[in-house]
């Protein structure tokens, strides 16, 4: 139930590289048009000629190309994967104060809030507070904890104003991103320093959910160096406990960060990012029931260097280290470092090859966790190499990608993760794609090394102990995913995106059934992590965007998930959302949204049969907000969130994680002030 990972980190980075670079391309001083892109000169020219034939409205509605599904620039429309991009503007107009909440808008993602600062975020099943099948990257830096294989969403409370975009890929991304990108990859790309020039102060206040304030400043030094620094402090109010009264889940997180972008030459750009946080969280551990205040503290530093060798070839390097300490359950002290290289090469106008390698090392000390581990300290590493080849069989019509990643990790040895993808675009209005891919989840430190020995009472006069141990001989979980997708644009104002998938999981890591061992002086109820059953999930995700008139945009998504009981334990069958964005006169915006989550039924609890997993009723979340731009410097907005009911529970208690609390209806007031001084004034 808990898991792991480390590997991902390594892999992930690779990814980030191209992203960051693309984001920067938009704003880095003096950078030439994104080099090394797969576009040949001829294609670029053709596109530019098309651009000149567009009118102003069409140009204003045109999206800038992004890079994700195939790690190279490509039209989102023609991407052979289930990909969605949430832009900074989408996030602003969604009216949320934190990143995990904003992910509710992403088609196919299931976001459920457990308490004031914990979320369960999943795609395609396996939702759990300890969901170990999603990979999250911030500018290429992995946010996956190898102790349990989960993501600490509470410390991903980054300033929303710093987010350039979030690229979400449902389905495996193991070939490009590496291990643990099993059910999806969430790729958070922050703005370049050039996009964060000037002064910004933003604050959001809600009596019911909490307060957050960000202060940011950016400037430049000389012609080729831009930088930006920020500080942010958030305080999240404790929610109502289902047992009555306030829960102990208050959360205080002060943090600061720095970004520096340097155009070293016309062929080289270097970015430095660093940040740190030092917070306190309250926790409602179901296991102990004792409220406590725990330290959460961490930092990171990363450097990214992109070098353009020629029009057809470029190389990117990413290096980072991060470290953090968390008390509570889970608790850990950890430091990790990662180095990645990626080379993109356009062999001919129709063929390209991306290849790379990475080395990741992570060391921990699990003494802060209430559970015992053997060994208590451990350092592990992952070394990996990958290559992906792409060929346009019929230019502008039919494209095939194939690749694989080979790695070695200290838990399971050698692993491979191949994929093949095909996209057919009979014309610019229709795109069909299909893919087959294999990805793995490596056992977590918890899966491998847990060593729990808990007195639980007295039986027949003998002391009774529950013994739960990890298993160093576990194999990786693996998934074989088959996907098909279709995108269509019936008119310039309307588009649809449909994907269907069938995932087969093998060797899922579960607890073995308990075995009672009667010893001369005690009774042991023992269980162990083992590679268990197979499972499957299948489902459909449909999203649409429609702009009926120029000042009104609608977007929405339907997500249907089905599968084996293990995969569906905490995953709703139906999700539905629709968002409306209206631009009114006088720079006023009126935005609203409905999010539907179907019920979770009462379910047996494998780990503790006497405590079945509680049901969660269906709920429909309604948010309504109004925003005003006052001059060019001020934006004020008022949001009503969860207007449908006074309070509701979104997740059920997890046997090990935190107890679920009641999400309240809330009113939030937000103010944003930004000021950009004259360039040159600093000279």
């Amino acid at each position, binding site marked *: 139930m808990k898991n792991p990972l480390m590997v991902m980190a390594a892999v992930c980075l690779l990814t980030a590289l191209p992203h960051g670079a693309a984001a920067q391309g938009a704003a880095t001083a003096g950078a030439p048009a994104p080099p090394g892109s797969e576009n040949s000169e001829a294609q670029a020219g053709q596109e*530019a000629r098309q651009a000149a034939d567009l009118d102003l409205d069409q140009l204003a509605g045109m999206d800038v190309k992004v890079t994700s599904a195939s790690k190279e620039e490509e039209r989102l429309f023609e991407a052979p994967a289930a990909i969605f991009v949430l832009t900074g503007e989408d996030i602003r107009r969604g009216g949320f104060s934190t990143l995990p909440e904003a992910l509710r808008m992403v088609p196919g993602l299931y976001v459920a809030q457990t308490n004031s600062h914990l979320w369960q975020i999943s795609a395609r099943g396996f939702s759990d507070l300890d969901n170990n099948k999603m990979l999250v990257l911030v500018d290429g830096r992995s946010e996956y904890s190898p102790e349990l294989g989960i993501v600490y969403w509470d410390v991903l409370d980054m300033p929303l104003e710093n987010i350039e975009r979030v690229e979400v890929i449902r389905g495996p991304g193991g070939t490009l991103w590496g291990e643990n990108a099993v059910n999806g990859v969430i790729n958070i790309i922050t703005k370049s320093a050039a996009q964060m020039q000037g002064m910004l102060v933003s604050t959001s206040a809600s009596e019911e959910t909490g307060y957050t304030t960000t202060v940011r400043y950016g400037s430049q030094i000389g012609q080729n160096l831009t930088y930006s620094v920020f500080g942010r402090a958030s305080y999240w109010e404790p929610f109502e406990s289902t047992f009555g009264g306030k829960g102990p889940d208050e959360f205080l997180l002060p943090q600061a960060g720095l970004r520096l972008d340097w155009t070293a030459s016309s062929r080289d750009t270097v970015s430095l990012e660093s940040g740190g946080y030092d917070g306190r969280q309250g926790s409602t551990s179901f296991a102990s029931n004792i409220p406590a205040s725990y330290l959460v503290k961490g930092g990171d530093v990363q450097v990214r260097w992109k070098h353009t060798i020629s029009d057809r070839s470029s190389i990117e390097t990413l290096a980072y280290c991060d470290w953090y300490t968390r008390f509570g359950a889970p608790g850990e002290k950890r430091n990790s470092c990662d180095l990645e290289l990626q080379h993109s090469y356009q062999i001919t106008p129709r063929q390209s090859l991306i290849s790379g390698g990475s080395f990741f090392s992570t060391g921990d000390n699990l003494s802060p966790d209430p559970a015992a581990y053997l060994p208590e300290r451990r350092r592990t590493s992952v070394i990996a190499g990958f290559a992906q080849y792409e060929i346009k069989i019929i230019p502008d019509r039919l494209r095939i990608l194939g690749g694989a990643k080979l790695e070695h990790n200290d838990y399971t040895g050698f692993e491979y993760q191949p994929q093949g993808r095909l996209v057919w675009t009979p014309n*610019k209005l229709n795109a069909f794609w299909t893919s087959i891919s294999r990805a793995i989840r490596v056992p977590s430190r918890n899966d491998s090394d847990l060593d729990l020995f808990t007195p639980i009472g007295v039986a027949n006069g003998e002391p009774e102990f529950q013994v739960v141990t990890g298993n160093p001989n576990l194999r990786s979980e693996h998934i074989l995913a088959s996907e098909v997708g279709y995108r269509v644009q019936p008119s310039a104002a309307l588009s649809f995106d449909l994907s269907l998938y069938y995932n087969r999981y093998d060797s899922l890591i579960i607890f073995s059934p308990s075995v009672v061992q009667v010893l001369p002086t005690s009774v042991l109820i023992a269980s162990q992590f083992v590679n268990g059953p197979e499972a499957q999930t299948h489902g459909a995700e449909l999203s649409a965007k429609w702009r009926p008139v120029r000042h009104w945009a609608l977007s929405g998504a339907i997500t249907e998930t089905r599968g084996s009981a293990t995969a569906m334990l905490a995953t709703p069958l139906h999700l539905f959302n629709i968002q409306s964005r209206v631009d009114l006169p006088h720079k006023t915006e009126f935005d609203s949204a409905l999010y539907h989550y179907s019920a979770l039924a009462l379910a047996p609890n494998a780990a503790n049969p006497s405590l079945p997993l509680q049901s969660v009723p269906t709920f429909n979340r309604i948010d309504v907000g109004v925003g005003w731009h006052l001059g060019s410097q001020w934006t004020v907005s008022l949001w009503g969130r969860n207007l449908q009911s006074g309070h509701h529970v979104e997740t059920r208690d997890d046997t090990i994680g935190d107890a679920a609390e009641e999400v309240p209806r809330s009113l939030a007031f937000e103010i944003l002030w930004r000021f950009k001084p004259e360039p040159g004034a600093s000279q």
Partner: protein
Amino acid sequence: MKRGIHLILALVSMLPASRSASAQMDEYSIKAGYLYNFSKYVQWPEGTFLAPETPFVICIVGEDPFGGRLDQAIAGKTSGDARPLEVRRFKKADASALRACQMAFLSKSEMQHTAAIVDAVKNFPVFTVADFAPFAEIGGIADLRIDGTKVKVDLNMNAANRAKLKISGKLQQVASLVN
């Protein structure tokens, strides 16, 4: 009737080109598209051009970020009043050379010299447009700004008036007016 069917087919097969509008394009293709459109939606004062065949000059100041896309975009096209279009490139801003441009595109590499460039041409009919914000807010006429995944235009009407340039209502509608 048959003829009608053929026309529809012709339309359908032509749609993709314009439909790619709602899809995606390279950032600098979009920006090149904007520059070309500016030449049509802005009116330069009488006497700007010496002769009917005098070309309409678009100058790129600083490092050229277009990688040939601007030349491709305007190839074979003409300005609003049917003049041939011409692209000139300057490594460094030079006041007298700039005043001979109808449109001056400031590359990000020239960010540091913004104030001097704006000052040099502020009373001349030169449509200044920069590849970075907040150029329009600080005295330039327009800038192309990345907003989420879109490229948006900021427009400073005071600066345009001072340069005696008439901006069409259509362009004002699409742009964000910064003053």
